[in-house]
């Protein structure tokens, strides 16, 4: 796929209490943002198992966004701090596995920040568009992958 026709595929894991509500606000306020993101609602950014992120990349995502409540605002007290710690370590591991850390992003978006959500998605989409497709393919059976 050439970069001119390339449309990034993004997966966004949004927490129920802040970021998903923020995305909803962007919607009800009719703020337009890049349609490249597929949103998955989770109860808390701390619920995002690193396996979800790896699976998204394996299944064809070009970028993965995790979004949760601002530090100190987590509905479950500490879930977003857990997400932050996992994000930092997973970013390092992704780089070792050949996935640029720019493809993985953690953002804090509160329920009132519809405009911020719009901005994050637009900016992330453009960033991935510049990076190009990930094309991570490993079917576990084919041995001629490199």
């Amino acid at each position, binding site marked *: 796929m050439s970069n001119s026709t390339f449309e990034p595929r993004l997966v966004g894991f949004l927490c129920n209490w802040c970021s998903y509500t923020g995305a909803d606000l962007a919607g009800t306020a009719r703020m337009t943002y890049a349609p490249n993101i597929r949103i998955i609602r989770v109860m808390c950014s701390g619920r995002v198992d690193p396996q979800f992120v790896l699976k998204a990349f394996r299944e064809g995502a070009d970028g993965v966004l995790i979004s949760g409540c601002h530090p100190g605002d987590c509905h479950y007290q500490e879930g977003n701090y857990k997400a*932050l710690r996992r994000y930092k370590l997973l970013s390092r591991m992704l780089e070792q596995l050949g996935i640029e850390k720019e493809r993985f992003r953690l953002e804090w978006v509160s329920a009132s920040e519809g405009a911020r959500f719009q901005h994050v998605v637009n900016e992330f989409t453009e960033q991935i568009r510049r990076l190009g497709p990930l094309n991570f393919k490993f079917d576990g059976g084919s041995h*001629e992958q490199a």
Partner: protein
Amino acid sequence: MSKPKVAFYWCASCGGCEEAVVDLAEDILKVVEAVDIVFWPVALDFKKKDLEAMADGSIAVSFINGSVRLSEQEEMVHLLRRKSQLVVAFGSCSHLGGIPGLANFWNKETIFRRAYFTTPSTVNPDGVVPQEKVIVEGKELTLPKFFETVRALDQVIDVDYYLPGCAPPRDLILNAVGAILEGKLPPKGAVLSPNKSLCDDCDRNKTKPEKLTIKEFKRPWEVFLDPEKCFLAQGVICMGPATRTGCDERCIEANMPCRGCFGPTDQVYDQGAKFLSALASLIDFKDEKEIEKIVQTIADPAGTFYRFSLPKSILGRRKMEAIK
């Protein structure tokens, strides 16, 4: 009634799994009494043609260790699959890819460059590299193809059971052989070891504080390890929380942390990712900069968390072209 036929085979492995079979000591005599070993290249002089001459499905069970790195291994495991009623993936390499699976951080080109050109001990002025085919004095000589990616056994053929461990411990081997001989087998696809984490069985679990937190990561050689205290509570990375039990805590008793050779429990697909999740949540900082700093002190996270399971992880290998 004739005795059930058994085959042993090795692929990309170190020979430790073969050693584990020999280490059954006098118990191996009971095994030999009950079965007919029809193929075991490391110990008995049977050839590939002997195996080819057997009827399909005539071997009761094949124990195959090692991961699949070469075309020769691929060919042999397909042949063994055809001749066997049951195939047991024997040991970590066969089960998960194992230590040879760490080569999935590289590909054929980079491995060959390192092995035949850039290691300090290499002297290769003519730039000789193994070829799959070469003509010597008018005759064609061949070598197996070296694949780009190392695979676990079930990524190549259908596998019935898994015996985990590097190498599988004696009791697990004997239990598995006993279960097969008596026909008391668990559902197909089972890993023949208890389905709970190592921490559940670990004697050090009782020394784990109520709230386990880590402020500093240390490598085993950087500290005098307390022989009774939970390794994670000492800031030393121990794969116990994300690793299946059944190993009799051989490493723990030798005062070394778990390295994860038994792979994950049935509930988890990706051992490394799950361990990363558990370990990161123990970090005792909330400030982004401090978290960043402590995370940087973990040497080689991917190689540590996927030490035995990279081919069987969600991503399976490193994507080469992204690395400049």
